[in-house]
């Protein structure tokens, strides 16, 4: 059956534009996903809700629509057909569902993913009836890494605590000499029970937790959460609030890109770049703090609108700072381009060709560096992006150099958008009053964060409590592609390649 038929059968889900839901049976769960994959669909997220009738969900982005497959399971411990043959990124999401909710995919890989040794296998944190187990003494778990054997092959284990100021995760390299034959990731170290915590909160409190799913994407998560919540409540935020949300989201993108560009130069042995870009980032954060009240905008986007106003002078200062940074970043880009050593490290490192990127579902910034020209701000714009005409920045080489180039391009584009917002910001109220129990049902928020599409699937119970909330980071898709990007490269290039993706551990581990 062509994809169009499924979409005709679907009903809209409130929240982000173009999201719809189709209820499918066990047989059609895989068939529908296969039709979507054949039609160029990309898996956005896969999750379960076992708080009432056990349900499986898969959100697939297909053209202008986001088709959400909903499949009711007979019991919470049922099995269901795996989608990993269609979307390789589904494999880990399915293993996480088995760890936290219970339903198991019929797939060859049944190893736990987010569950290490901290709680027993029969405890399912998201099955509402179960009470938490007594904490046990911390113990090491035995994870079945895939072994590579052969003449001269050896393993290098790295982590969970890394040599630097970064998040924890374990990498197992199988190498011959310096060359990497295989990298296997082991994540879940910063799993801190976010989804269960959501289930204990009121709908209008959830934004605070959503903003802290991955701190570098606080605005994207807050906005996606609020978009879902406001969709359920059929609430329309004031125009000024929508524009200020976009301003905050672009400020977040600019800060992260500035930080990454400096760190990438540093990982290529060019300390000058780190000094310059970290200085520009500090300038920018101070301007953002002066204009919007916080350096990092954790609680700026709130249900019903935004928390703070920005006066015209501070906004003008922010735009002026942006223009100054744009000029300085252009000079630094020329320095990067003319530096033989930097070019040598960037070009051809960690290549993900466009065909592989499409097959594995590489998304967001890293996807756009491998020819996957998807950007929610351009493809499926929510207000005010429908008036800002953001240009998706696409490169096709798929190497570290391309991911650097996308960051430079997006930095300039976001600074342009900040300038435009500062000139066109509409007047009016900052927020609408948002009642504690403004509605019940399911909504989906979808926002293009700096790293890629951030999805929040939210179900509100009739009493105004959160029944289920699943925040989904683009890192889920991209972590597994990183394992492919490193193949055939040398071990010393891994920090550079890893940084060029700069994926979230916290957003993935939940």
């Amino acid at each position, binding site marked *: 059956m062509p994809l169009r038929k499924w979409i005709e059968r679907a009903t809209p889900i409130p929240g982000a534009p173009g999201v719809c839901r189709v209820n499918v049976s066990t047989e059609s769960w895989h068939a529908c996903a296969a039709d979507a994959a054949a039609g160029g669909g990309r898996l956005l997220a896969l999750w379960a809700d076992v708080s009432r009738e056990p349900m499986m969900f898969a959100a697939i982005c297909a053209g202008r629509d986001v088709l959400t497959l909903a499949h009711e399971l007979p019991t919470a411990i049922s099995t269901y057909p795996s989608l990993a043959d269609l979307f390789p990124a589904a494999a880990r999401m399915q293993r996480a569902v088995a760890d936290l909710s219970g339903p198991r995919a019929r797939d060859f890989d049944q190893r736990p993913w987010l569950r*290490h040794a901290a709680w027993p296998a029969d405890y399912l944190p998201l099955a509402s009836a179960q009470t938490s187990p007594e904490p046990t003494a911390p113990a090491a778990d035995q994870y079945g890494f895939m072994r590579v054997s052969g003449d001269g092959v050896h393993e290098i284990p790295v982590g969970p605590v890394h040599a630097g100021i970064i998040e924890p995760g374990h990498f197992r390299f199988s190498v011959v000499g310096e060359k990497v034959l295989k990298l296997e990731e082991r994540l879940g170290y910063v*799993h*801190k029970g976010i989804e269960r915590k959501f289930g204990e909160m009121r709908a209008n409190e959830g934004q605070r937790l959503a903003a802290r799913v*991955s701190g*570098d994407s606080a605005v994207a998560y807050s906005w996606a959460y609020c978009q879902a919540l406001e969709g359920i409540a059929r609430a329309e935020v004031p125009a000024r609030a929508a524009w200020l949300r976009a301003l905050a989201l672009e400020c977040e993108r600019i800060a992260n890109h500035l930080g990454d560009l400096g760190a990438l130069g540093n990982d290529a042995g060019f300390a000058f770049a780190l000094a310059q870009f970290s200085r520009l980032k500090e300038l920018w954060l101070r301007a953002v703090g002066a204009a919007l009240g916080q*350096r990092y905008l954790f609680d700026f986007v709130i249900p019903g609108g935004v928390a703070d106003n920005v006066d015209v002078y501070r906004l003008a200062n922010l735009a002026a700072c942006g223009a100054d940074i744009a000029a300085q970043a252009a000079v630094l880009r020329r320095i990067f381009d003319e530096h033989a050593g930097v070019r040598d490290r960037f070009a051809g490192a960690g290549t993900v060709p466009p065909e592989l990127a499409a097959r594995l579902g590489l998304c967001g910034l890293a996807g756009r560096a491998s020819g996957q020209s998807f950007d929610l701000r351009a493809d499926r714009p929510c207000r005010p992006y429908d008036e800002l005409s953001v240009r998706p920045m696409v490169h096709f080489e798929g190497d570290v150099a391309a991911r650097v180039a996308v960051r430079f391009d997006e930095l300039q584009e976001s600074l342009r958008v900040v300038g435009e917002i500062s000139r066109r910001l509409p007047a009016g109220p900052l927020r609408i009053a948002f009642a504690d129990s403004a509605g019940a049902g399911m909504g989906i928020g979808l926002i293009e964060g700096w790293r890629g599409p951030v999805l929040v699937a939210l179900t509100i119970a009739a009493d105004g409590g959160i029944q289920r909330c699943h925040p989904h980071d683009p890192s889920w898709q991209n972590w597994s592609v990183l394992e492919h990007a490193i193949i055939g490269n040398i071990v010393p290039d891994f920090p550079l390649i890893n940084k060029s993706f700069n994926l979230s551990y916290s957003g993935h581990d939940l």
Partner: protein
Amino acid sequence: MLKTLHTICRTGIVTEPAPASDAALRVGDELQQRIRDILGRALCIRHVDAGSCNGCELEIHALNNPVYNIEGLGIKFVASPRHADLLLVTGPVARNMELALRRVHDATPEPKLVVAIGDCACTGGVFGESYASAGRVANVIPVNVAVAGCPPHPNRILTAILTSIQARNAK
């Protein structure tokens, strides 16, 4: 090359003076005056993310920028706990990280200082205690100085670090 040198010259020195220490941040005071005298200001820090959302990491990174210029104060981040005098711990302690955090603490040579950074490290924050989170850092390893904030400003983090090594009567 000329462009690089020109940019360096044009930028000049942007480092700002460091903040003073703040005795109010001290939570444990069992450290001996003598130990603080030995460490002085040549301090090696190991950062451990025990379960943070990565917000605090962004502000810790800022300490290395030319404006806060922590290396200019003789303080640097090192790659192994075995080289460290001080552990800078962020996040509520995820139970999946509890063992790793204890091992890092064990591997750090005496006298070891522990500075807890951010609301989550101080109290468990929005994540609290649960099947997956052991809550504040002090629930797992002893803490000397704690600084709240979500995330704390780089100057507050620097203040906390300086407070931990400041001699008790030096002010």
